[in-house]
């Protein structure tokens, strides 16, 4: 309990205390308001803080997701944290569910009908599973009527991305030339 000394704590210290108290991702702008400092400066502070945690091999890390900045436990400590985790891990997603998730991630927001069209098979069940797990969410309904789905902020956060723009380019996942050639030769009648 220090007396009013005229000197305030360093800004990075205040940022750190706000992050500790937050129970959801906090936008840099919200911290900037508290500090009465420009958002750009706060963003710099946050990046420095994140870097310093990384460098000093702490038990926690600072990461930005669509909603803002948040403290997380260091992933290499996860095995020891298991017993503190509430709830259980969901069973793994099926390849079909993952494919739909990828389609929505890269092409979303999409309607059920479009997803089905892209895959050539009824995908409503898979969409429902993904929605129940909170991995995708409905976009606020537009005038057109069809419900559109997109990845939830929670998913993007869990993927460790700041936004969907950070997804690796789709070309990275394309089969290589050799594989395509192989497919082509198998589709061609042998002479």
């Amino acid at each position, binding site marked *: 309990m220090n007396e009013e000394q005229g000197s305030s704590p360093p800004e990075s210290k205040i940022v750190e205390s706000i992050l500790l108290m937050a129970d959801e991702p906090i936008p840099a702008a919200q911290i900037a308001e508290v500090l009465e400092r420009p958002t750009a400066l706060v963003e710099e502070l946050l990046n420095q803080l994140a870097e310093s945690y990384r460098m000093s091999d702490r038990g926690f890390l600072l990461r930005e997701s669509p909603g803002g900045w948040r403290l997380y436990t260091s992933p290499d400590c996860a095995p020891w*944290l298991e017993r503190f985790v509430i709830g259980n891990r969901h069973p793994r997603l*099926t390849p079909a569910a993952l*494919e739909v998730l*990828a389609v929505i991630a*890269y092409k979303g927001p999409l*309607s059920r009908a479009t997803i089905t069209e892209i895959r050539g098979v*009824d995908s409503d069940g898979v969409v429902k599973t993904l929605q129940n797990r909170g991995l995708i969410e409905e976009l606020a309904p537009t005038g057109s009527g069809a419900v559109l789905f997109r990845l939830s902020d929670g998913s993007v956060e869990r993927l460790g991305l700041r936004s969907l723009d950070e997804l690796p380019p789709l070309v990275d*996942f394309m089969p290589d030339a050799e594989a395509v050639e*192989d497919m082509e030769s198998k589709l061609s*009648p042998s002479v």
Partner: protein
Amino acid sequence: MAYEVKLDVFEGPIDLLLHLITRQRVDIYEISLSTITEEYIAAIERLDELDLETATGFLIVAATLLELKSSRLLPGRYTEDPSLLEERDLLLARLVECATFRAAGEWLATMLERGLDWHPRTAGLEPEFAGLAPDLLASTTPEHLARAAAAAFAPKPTPEIDLHHITPIRETVRDAIYELAQVLDGRSGAVSFSELCGGTTRRIEVVVRFLALLELFKSGAVDVAQADRFGDIRATWTGEVDFDEVLEEADEYMLAPTQPGGARS
């Protein structure tokens, strides 16, 4: 070569083809188009529990494979017929797309799994600050609560199955049977397949007409003949089956998909 394909209910026609075509890359010289075609048709024979819309997608791919396979006997035609090449490329493009999303899905799975190892700070406000937090219920009335509860307890709408996207294809197969029957019924002689396909602009329409013709052939309403190995398929209305009966069969086709392999190419 017996090969059991286990089909996930949600796997689609392109998934299946991708699966057949990419397994065992070591055996590259052993897996030919005809093996793949046979296995594909064998696999869709086991799809009886699938709904019709899905089955149509499988049949279209099967028909394309059959057409490609049959062109094996006609090497000249294969290289000279740009539409057949186009058809193959269309299939190839869809395969590449499917493989791409599949790989992207695997990457997402890895990242989501890793994400579970990141536990966010959730402790929240310390007691001395909790009192300062804005009253979250300030603008909430008991009526708001009642409305929200009513919504939560209301029966969940069963997911609306919008078949809008698939309807064109479905109607086209049925309609193609109808259309072909109409054209052929009114003609005394044989009509060539290319004439039957006159006016079609997309490959898929040709494939759908091909399927329709196979159906008409199976029902006995139409006779098909190929004058020579390189010739066009010529279809003749037999007059043995009533026109209405043909339409009935067309509807049945929509209800109980048969596989086109029955009519050998």
